[in-house]
């Protein structure tokens, strides 16, 4: 299991890289360009978010997929929408690109980041 998750992490990172290169050619995200950068806190206090954001998202995912409830502030789409940064050219940088909001922390913590094998890494509008 352990080796497996390491492998998926690697895969996710590679994917992020490829996504970044292949689609937007985006450079490094610029500090302050994400909407979240301008807010004091997320949907819960920062300490709570750091500790248990995945629980919020996980709960939300089951509620959304099985019950169809979308009106909530805990959706992954909401995370991406608010935390995605732009590069110097104003292009959005995938949140799972190295050093970006999601990947930066997950890399540091050595935690696997599986969301983006399936989910969009920047808002797509629909």
């Amino acid at each position: 299991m352990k080796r497996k998750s390491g492998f998926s992490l690697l895969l996710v990172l590679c994917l992020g890289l490829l996504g970044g290169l292949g689609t937007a050619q985006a450079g490094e995200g610029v500090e302050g360009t994400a909407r979240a950068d301008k807010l004091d806190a997320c949907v819960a206090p920062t300490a709570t978010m750091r500790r248990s954001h995945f629980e919020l998202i996980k709960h939300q995912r089951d509620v959304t997929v099985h019950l169809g409830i979308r009106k909530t502030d805990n959706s992954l789409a909401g995370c991406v929408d608010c935390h995605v940064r732009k590069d110097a050219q104003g292009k959005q940088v995938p949140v799972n690109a190295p050093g970006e909001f999601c990947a930066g922390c997950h890399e540091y913590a050595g935690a696997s980041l599986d969301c983006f094998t399936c989910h969009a890494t920047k808002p797509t509008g629909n």
Partner: protein
Amino acid sequence: MNKIHYREWGIESPRYWGLLAVLAAIVGVGGFATLYMEHEGHWVTGMTNQIVWGTPHVFAIFLIVAASGALNVASIGSVFGQKMYKPLARLSGLMAITLLVGGLIVLVLDLGQPSRLIVAMTTYNFKSIFAWNIYLYVGFMAIVAVYLFTMMERKANRFSHGVGVFAFVWRLALTTGTGSIFGFLVARQGYDAAIMAPMFIIMSFAYGLALYLLVLMFTFDSDERPLGDAVLRRLKNLLGVFVAAVFYFTVVYHLTNLYGTENHAFEAFILRDGGVYTWTFWIGWVLLGMLAPMGILFHPALGMQRGSIAIAALLVVLGGLSAIYVIVIGGQAFPLNMFPGHTIIESGYFDGVNGVARHYSPSLPEFLLGIGGFALALLVTFIGVRLLQFLPTSLADDVADTQQAK
């Protein structure tokens, strides 16, 4: 009384390690093939959205079916009280476990998300025979392990009969479950038949015993342990009977299908027009897998020669793989009958235009994964018999006769 003694497999070290190295290499190659498929995704295989189960499933299902069949030898000894089979029981239990491990690993590694095995273990839909099979397979390994313990630990010997009966019932449930994977597929012409479950049971008898015979003959011969004609004759006759039973079920399966008009197209496909599937059916499943081995095993002269018995067992294994191939792949290649009374003349997505079969050509990595599962099962078997006392020191006629007379 001539007591049965068991001893670890004693072939000389270079040979033993050489054998392990060869098998480990095959397992390793299978492992690399798996990593490759895992990393790239299933597009590197021959599998498509129409043929969703490919070569790995053929090997996996064969091994799983053979696993439950390998236990038969032990069951005959302890459930049906045939004394001659008693000394054969330990190897039978070991192979039941190792073949199942080999098959399950192939099955799991071919999942789209093997890393989510934990999900499969914790989230169940009890209407799914797959979910039941997870219990049946894991339970089978545990029960057979206990069964082996009761056989090998003298203090536990008295429980051996009870556990053996339980294991026998469980293996019937297990193979029923495996056969039902197909039997429950109401939508597919080739599968929706209750006969699938008993047919799989009888197939498991034959394939399991064939593999057992091969391993028994190889381990005994290489270690220069006496393997008497009495035991061998018994086993080869049993194999012949099992193969004949498979033959019977095959005939009944197709005859019942031929009776119902709705299945005529499917039968024509398998028996006459299906190209590679028709060839595999007649040459692999019927000729090599049933007629030839029966001819050898029941032949007055050939049936007594060890070489030809081994060939017959090998043919049964090949025939078994062919049979599963025809069932799994052939059953999918035949297009779904969505519009009875109509012919699909154009389709945006491979609906069998003008009844043409869906395309599948197996890829090398798939094949390597399947072979890897086989090699793994043998590898663990050979390690097992080397480390623990699974094999009796002698199955010479006098030993076997004494057992019989007891």
